[in-house]
């Protein structure tokens, strides 16, 4: 396999990510871990919105219910046999199963109706969370979830250890989304997004593709939720609330939907905003809203999308000068 410039960039970024805990005095590790969790959540969401063109307004259900799953597993069995990676895997499987049910019900609908079905189902999950206090502890949430021993060997209680666990989960999740996007399966998804009737006429079982991508997206969202529970050692109702579904739309859009790195950048941006805007107190809602509006009006491609656009224009200009125009690449494969 030829090592392209892209691979080099990936490897460098991967190595930079590894050094996270070294900068403890500049960036707080839990803050970084939060970014990785939300970045994974946003990547999973982007897979659906950016590549399959499906706007789900119910992704909080996967994030939140997997968080409760992992939390309960660790709290009940963490002291005996449950290890964090097993908890995350079980919670991810749960989210995949839930995604299968949601997806099966929702994919037959299009556009805003799809969003509404997912919202309704997610509201139902929220309702269940409220009605099952023995499982969710109501609005108090699951508190003091132990982080456990990774593989039964490494204690994750120190933040620096936990960091590598979270980073590992993120890298695996990110790699999965990347592989999905750049596989023939991803190509079909894009075809469906661009022109569904044509994809049907080409003989693709469109609904099967949509369902599969929905399940993958749900599973990865669940993985993010379960990991988040371990980081913060709590799972709460706000993870299943529709605000969380809205938040992930914001992250994806802000970073650039349909781009590989967009959701990561968007998640980092929004999480930092929440973290550092705490100081402005009651103005935090206003500032978030203004960013949202500006993003829709001015930076519709999102941060990464705009950067790609600019570089393409520059490159095109240069190529145009010496060799004549080459066909522009699709914005969805940077």
């Amino acid at each position, binding site marked *: 396999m030829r090592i392209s410039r892209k691979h080099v960039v990936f490897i460098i970024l991967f190595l930079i990510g590894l050094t996270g805990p070294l900068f403890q*005095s500049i960036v707080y590790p*839990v803050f970084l871990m939060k970014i990785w969790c939300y970045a994974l959540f946003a990547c999973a969401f982007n897979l659906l919105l950016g590549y399959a063109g499906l706007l789900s307004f119910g992704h909080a259900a996967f994030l939140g219910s997997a968080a409760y799953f992992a939390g309960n597993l660790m709290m009940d069995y963490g002291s005996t046999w449950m290890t964090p990676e097993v908890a995350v895997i079980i919670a991810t499987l749960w989210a995949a199963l839930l995604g299968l049910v949601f997806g099966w019900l929702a994919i037959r609908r299009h556009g805003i109706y799809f969003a509404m079905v997912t919202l309704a189902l997610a509201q139902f999950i929220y309702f269940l969370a409220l009605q099952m206090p023995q499982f969710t502890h109501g*609005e*108090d949430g699951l*508190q003091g979830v132990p982080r456990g021993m990774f593989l039964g060997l490494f204690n994750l209680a120190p933040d620096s250890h936990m960091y590598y666990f979270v980073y590992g989960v993120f890298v695996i999740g990110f790699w999965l989304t990347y592989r999905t996007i750049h596989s023939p399966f991803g190509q079909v998804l894009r075809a469906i997004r661009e022109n569904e009737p044509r994809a049907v006429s080409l003989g693709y079982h469109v609904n099967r593709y949509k369902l599969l991508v929905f399940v993958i997206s749900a599973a990865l969202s669940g993985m993010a939720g379960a990991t988040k529970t371990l980081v*913060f050692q709590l799972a709460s109702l706000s993870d299943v609330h529709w605000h969380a579904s809205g938040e992930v739309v914001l992250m994806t859009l802000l970073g650039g939907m349909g781009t590989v790195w967009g959701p990561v950048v968007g998640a980092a941006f929004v999480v930092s905003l929440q973290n550092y805007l*705490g100081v402005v107190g009651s103005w935090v809602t206003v500032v978030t809203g203004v960013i949202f509006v500006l993003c829709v009006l001015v930076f519709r491609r999102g941060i990464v999308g705009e950067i790609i656009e600019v570089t393409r224009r520059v490159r095109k200009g240069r190529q145009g000068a010496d060799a004549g125009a080459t066909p522009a690449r699709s914005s969805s494969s940077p």
Partner: protein
Amino acid sequence: MKRMIGHSLIGVALALMLAGPAAAADKVSDGVVKIGVLTDLSGIYSDLAGEGSVVAANMAVKDFGGTVLGKPIQVIKGDTQNSKADIAANIARKWYDDDHVDAIVGLVATNVALAGMEVGKQRHKITLVVGAASLPITDQKCEPWNVHWIYDTYSLAVGTGRALVEKGYKNWFFITANYQFGKSLQHDTTEVIDAGGGKVVGSVLAPFPTRDFSSFLLKAQSSGAQVIGLANAGSDTINAVKQAAEFGIMGSKQIVAPLLLFISDVHSLGLKTAQGMYLTTGFYWDRNKESREWSKRFFDTFSKHRMPTMVQAGVYSATLNYLRAVKAAGTDDSDAVMKQLKSMKISDPVIQKGHIRADGRLIHNMYLVQVKKPSESKYPWDYYKIVSTIPGDQAFLPANKSVCPLIKQPYHYGK
């Protein structure tokens, strides 16, 4: 750069600690006593806590003299954005780990309080919970470095529940918010009613939030109960009271008893609607000369010019007494300060004759008040008549009923 200096200071502090406990004991870590006010600055609790809590904490620092043990006192603030436990936990961790915060005061909703306490417990750092209501904070979930100030669901239940049963209001109907807080409020009050020979004739769990209570009120009305107990809070309570007035319940034979109502809620309801209701509070600004003077100062200092709620007053009291304890202990070391806090008398313009029990519960007088009629109110914020004072030993969960292990076996702080 600042952080690096901070780190070298930790280094110095560590070196001093290694040098021996005696050297550490008379030292203030990092050369500053830092108090973090972690509260809801932007969400639904921001009127009853919010900026007003920060103002109260700063007032306490100023009243204390601005320095302790010759070191400056600093107050920083953090926003839990309504009651997001993960954001609260994140801030608390960062404050304790990186920003050298010595004590966190505030923590308005129960989930936020439990999250903050968990972080504090792991680090043996102090949390002073003012605002969250749940009893488990000093019961099932109690921990040695936490104090619960001002009120809890039990004291509300006892205050309003017992007083009304004694007045002959024996049959109750509950409209309860469908979450843990509402349920535990109903549960605690039901115990008090049963003990007093009263009876709960019915109850309904209302979703949170509910915009229209008329359907539930109608049920309550037809139940024949003498009292409609509202086991909810905030705009839910306000809506329920308002609609009770609209449907002719207020002023009828049936009375409405909101179990948790802050003075900010009464302010927004207006006396015309709220008049005659009984409620329990841990602080009322116009109770005596001392509280009046302090509250007026708060009113003038606070840019929104509002009288303090019991939560804001509680933040003042918690901050002030924390500083007193630091001074008396001669150090800001958590163990020494907690030991001091639990052994000293708590007395200030807000709290009279209080003390902190082994489980972290601040025991002090609670007040049963009645909302005045518009004609009885002589000046702005003249809202309550104090009907009775509930002595601390009756207002809070008795030690023998508590399941907190610290009651039987108090924690041994330090050596």
